[in-house]
């Protein structure tokens, strides 16, 4: 199965969804998601709170599977492979598609063990020291901590912790990195560091980033999907994509009124 997923890493479109509807029990959380995510680009999901950006993001590595009431219909293709086909093991999906979370969440282990965690799980046989160093360098953290690899990851500053989490994610050499508001708990300087890092990482990885910060989306991303939310008669709020295009189009000449209103700061 790993090989199916691995050999799937060919097409220029990394993800393609067709009429994806996401439910929690009977509740329709997000509807009609049909988008294509291109390779080696940064795709940003923006929109007001509760519009389902993170929910959609977590479908791409099947992390929503951990929620018992979750189910979806429609199709989600990773390259050409249906990600929700019955023969696909969600654990293997997550080994291809890394994730960085909103709140920095290093393990209460040493910096080294944090980065080596994923590779050890996968039974990596190569030079672990070298891999850890390379991952930390890619995450622009190496110079900060190269003398204290044995220190606890949880003792680092917030911005360093988040870069450690990025290093941990790229240590397993994933194809895609999902980032769920990775800078929302960080100060402006750490945020800029992470944004600079994104530009370097996209050479090797495809990045999807959920953000509340519109400047961040306009600065850092190549493509932007604007999500909105509407309530039905029962008061249930369902998210959907209003507009998805190149980032400069979304921010400078959006086709939809709602997008224009949101990116100009009139609501949300």
């Amino acid at each position, binding site marked *: 199965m790993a090989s199916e997923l691995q050999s799937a890493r060919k097409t220029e479109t990394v993800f393609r969804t067709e009429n994806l509807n996401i439910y929690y029990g009977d509740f329709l959380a997000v509807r009609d998601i049909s988008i294509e995510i291109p390779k080696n680009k940064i795709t940003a999901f923006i929109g007001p709170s509760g519009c389902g950006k993170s929910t959609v993001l977590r479908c791409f590595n099947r992390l929503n599977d951990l929620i018992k009431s979750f189910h979806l219909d429609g199709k989600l293709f990773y390259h050409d492979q249906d990600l929700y086909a019955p023969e696909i093991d969600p*654990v*293997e999906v*997550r080994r291809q598609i890394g994730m960085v979370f909103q709140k920095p969440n290093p393990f209460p282990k040493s910096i080294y063990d944090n980065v080596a965690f994923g590779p050890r799980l996968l039974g990596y046989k190569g030079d672990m020291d070298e891999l850890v160093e390379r991952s930390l360098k890619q995450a622009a953290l190496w110079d900060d901590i190269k003398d204290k690899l044995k220190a606890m990851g949880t003792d680092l500053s917030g911005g360093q912790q988040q870069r450690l989490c990025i290093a941990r994610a790229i240590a397993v050499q994933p194809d895609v990195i999902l980032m769920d508001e990775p800078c929302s708990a960080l100060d402006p300087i750490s945020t800029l560091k992470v944004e600079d890092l994104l530009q370097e990482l996209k050479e090797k990885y495809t990045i999807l980033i959920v953000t509340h910060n519109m400047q961040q989306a306009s600065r850092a991303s190549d493509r932007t999907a604007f999500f909105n939310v509407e309530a039905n008669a029962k008061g249930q709020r369902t998210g959907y994509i209003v507009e998805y295009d190149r980032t400069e189009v979304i921010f400078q000449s959006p086709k939809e009124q709602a997008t224009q209103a949101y990116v100009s700061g009139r609501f949300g």
Partner: protein
Amino acid sequence: MATSPSQTAMPTERSQSSRVLDKAFVWLTGAFAIGVGFVLLAIAFRVGTDALPAIQKFGLSFLTTSRWSVNDEVFGALTQIYGTLVTSFIALLIAVPIGIGVALFLSEDYLPPRIKQPVVFLIELLAAIPSVVYGLWGIFVLIPLLKPFGIWLNTNFGWIPLFSTAPSGPGIYVAGIILSIMILPIIAAISRDSLVAVPAEIRQAAYGLGATRWETIFQVILPAAFSGIVGGIMLALGRAMGETMAVTMVIGNSNSISPSILSQGSTVSSLLANQFAEAGGLQVSSLMYAALILFGLTLVVNVLAEIIVRRFSLKL
């Protein structure tokens, strides 16, 4: 600043009585806290002074000899110290894996909450059973139940010193098993609390890296909860070493030392419970000495627990 209350403006000054009350509250709670510490010291001091004659007479040989003769006024508590350690060890051997297993099962989302809550409650209720009830249950239910198993162990594995005596009913292994049931809820409840306290973000991080549920539990959740679990185990060990009633009822109270867990024995606490009523003179002093040793043992366990909890506590 004037201490008299202001007349027309909003009274921003605190009244005298409020200040006094504040002070009084600090003093009162301080006195409680110091009082509790003082009680501990007073008990230790009294036990220590009463034990002094026996300490002077027997010295450290009290710890290494097992003769307990009231007529000759020769006392040694090796049998009891050995019994205390062995029963506690058996109890931990059984209760630690089961307790942590129970805690793991109840901290994960295997059960729907409306079934899980009652199960958690039932396990914690085990701790509420009075120890004399455990003892009674041990005598009338557990001993008959275990006897065939003890005989089977002795006939098939009698060549192992651990099972080298024929079981007579009560015995060290019965006491160990009773203790394991008594300390199980402590281990399970405290371990569960520390497992539940592991932040959900860490769990998600492990899943996000492609860890399975087992890999997540064993490589991330358990290590993160380690200090709390060890703290719970140490607390349980303290309880097991000091437990008196149930143990006295099922251990047989013989003063013989044997490598076999099927034989009868006694613990420090069962010795005290059995002998204090008719004791006099040097015997009282010797009992106090034994009590002091038990006191020291539990103290060591608690200090160790504290050190381990601090050393490995989760820094987040």
